[in-house]
């Protein structure tokens, strides 16, 4: 049986994007699928074919757009590609990043006073969703906390290892002369009241036990100091104590370390017959900016394709950056491009976008997810070994 040709391999590695359907979605690289070919697991082959490409890190623009309590050297918005890996593994990494990488979040809220208009439970929920940050090594070393459940002996003690204590105490009052101003018809709360808004920066960390040894310059705080938690009016007050624990996204979305962790397959655009002149401009308009470039028809093109003989110098559509395509399939709607263009996606090229909430860096999250998948396999293997004994 002959080895498959390069064209055949490329064809197998493409999903077809047709006007109404997507076809050739499933992987076929299994032993026995293609007669006479060897598709058995081979670590060396995987090592040779697998590639990682970094594309962008948009942390800087993200930081510019919003006030951050974290240093600009952090990397919380990365785009990278995994090439030469199966969807099942890429998806495992994505799923683990979303729901199984642990983070610190507020879990218990003890409300001593809440006379604001936000109900206790709503207030507590809002506090839980605030993304926290602190020294990452210390966070990494934190232990799990299991709440006591009646009839179950699984509870763990509350210690400095598994619990971070935060306080929130804000009281809204009239500013000096505020009452008079209000009588005169002034309605701007900034002129009338002090502490009329409760922000995430009002959270105060109370160190206890070994936490006093955590780095001074990196306290437990909100990633975004300007998150508005509640609004108040004179006489209203909140006094709360919070326990933050380590948890995973599977338990509650507040523990998910990513805002988005997603991947898409690399789009491909094949121009089968030259598209020139006004058609080329229209073709360019079918894709997002930058995807299609307009070159001039050269004399070589004219020689190669008979129909271009009179058209030297006219614009010609050339694919410049297929990665920028959103695969809207607009090009497939127009009859003039029929049989001239083929859209597809590369089956084993996953463009990941990992946008962290700020507690961890995107690359740390990815590496952690790989580590966790390995740990999962290890755990099963240990159980299997014990079972076989």
């Amino acid at each position, binding site marked *: 049986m002959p080895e498959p040709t390069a064209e055949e391999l490329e064809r197998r590695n493409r999903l077809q994007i047709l006007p109404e359907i997507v076809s050739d979605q499933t992987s076929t690289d299994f032993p026995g699928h293609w007669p006479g070919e060897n598709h058995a*697991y081979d670590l060396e082959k995987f090592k040779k074919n697998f590639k*990682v*490409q*970094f594309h962008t890190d948009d942390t800087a623009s993200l930081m510019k757009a919003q006030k951050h309590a974290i240093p600009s050297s952090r990397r919380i918005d990365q785009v990278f590609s995994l090439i030469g890996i199966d969807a099942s*593994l890429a*998806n495992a990494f994505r799923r683990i990043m979303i729901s199984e990488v642990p983070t610190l979040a507020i879990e218990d809220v003890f409300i001593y006073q809440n006379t604001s208009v936000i109900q206790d439970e709503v207030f507590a929920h809002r506090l839980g969703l605030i993304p926290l940050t602190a020294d990452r090594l210390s966070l990494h070393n934190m232990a799990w906390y299991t709440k006591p459940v009646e009839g179950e002996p699984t509870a763990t003690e*509350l210690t400095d290892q598994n619990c971070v204590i935060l306080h929130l*105490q804000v009281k809204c009052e009239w500013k000096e002369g505020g009452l008079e101003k209000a009588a005169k018809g002034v309605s701007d709360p900034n002129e009338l009241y002090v502490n009329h808004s409760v922000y995430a920066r009002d959270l*105060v960390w109370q160190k206890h036990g070994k936490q006093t040894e955590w780095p001074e310059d990196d306290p437990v705080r909100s990633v975004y100091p300007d998150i508005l938690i509640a609004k108040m009016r004179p006489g209203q007050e909140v006094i709360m104590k919070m326990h933050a624990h380590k948890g995973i996204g599977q338990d509650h979305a507040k523990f998910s370390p990513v805002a988005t962790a997603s991947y898409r397959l690399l789009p491909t655009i094949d121009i089968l017959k030259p598209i020139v002149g006004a058609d080329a401009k229209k073709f360019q308009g079918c894709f997002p900016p930058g995807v299609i470039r307009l070159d001039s028809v050269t004399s070589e093109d004219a020689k190669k394709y008979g129909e271009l003989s009179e058209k030297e110098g006219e614009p010609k559509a050339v694919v410049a950056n297929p990665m920028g395509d959103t695969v809207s399939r607009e090009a497939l709607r127009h009859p003039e491009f029929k049989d001239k263009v083929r859209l597809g996606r590369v089956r084993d090229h996953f463009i990941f976008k990992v946008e962290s909430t700020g507690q961890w860096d995107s690359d740390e999250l990815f590496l952690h997810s790989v580590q966790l*998948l390995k740990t999962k396999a290890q755990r099963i293997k240990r159980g299997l070994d014990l079972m076989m004994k």
Partner: protein
Amino acid sequence: MPAPPQHMQVEDEVIIDRGELVEGNDDEKDRERIRVLAGSTENAASFQFDGEDHTLGNALRYVIMKNPDVEFCGYSIPHPSENKMNLRIQTYDNVNVYTVLEKGLGDLMDMCDVVSEKFVIARDEFYAGRSAGEDGDRMEE
């Protein structure tokens, strides 16, 4: 950092300071998480894993299917509200399903190592190229 507010002093809660958390022996737990379902033979068996989902299920299915000795491999989540995953393996003659499962787990771990390794290299190259000397004191995984 401001001092914690006053009401802290009326706290009655006990918080114990502990230097190191004692790591429990999880072997027994690991053993309980896996079982072989009824009707298994040497070269056809269904396994059930507790606490696993599509994350491990599909990845494991893929590496096991890559094994030429395997006739069939598939996984299912029998019920969405039960935290269980079933894995079915059938092998060709004279090949034991347990060794196939064990090899699959080993292969998966090896692939994870390759991914980590290459990811770190690509990341470091990218940031070295972007600006030299910017990232001196970054924490590594």
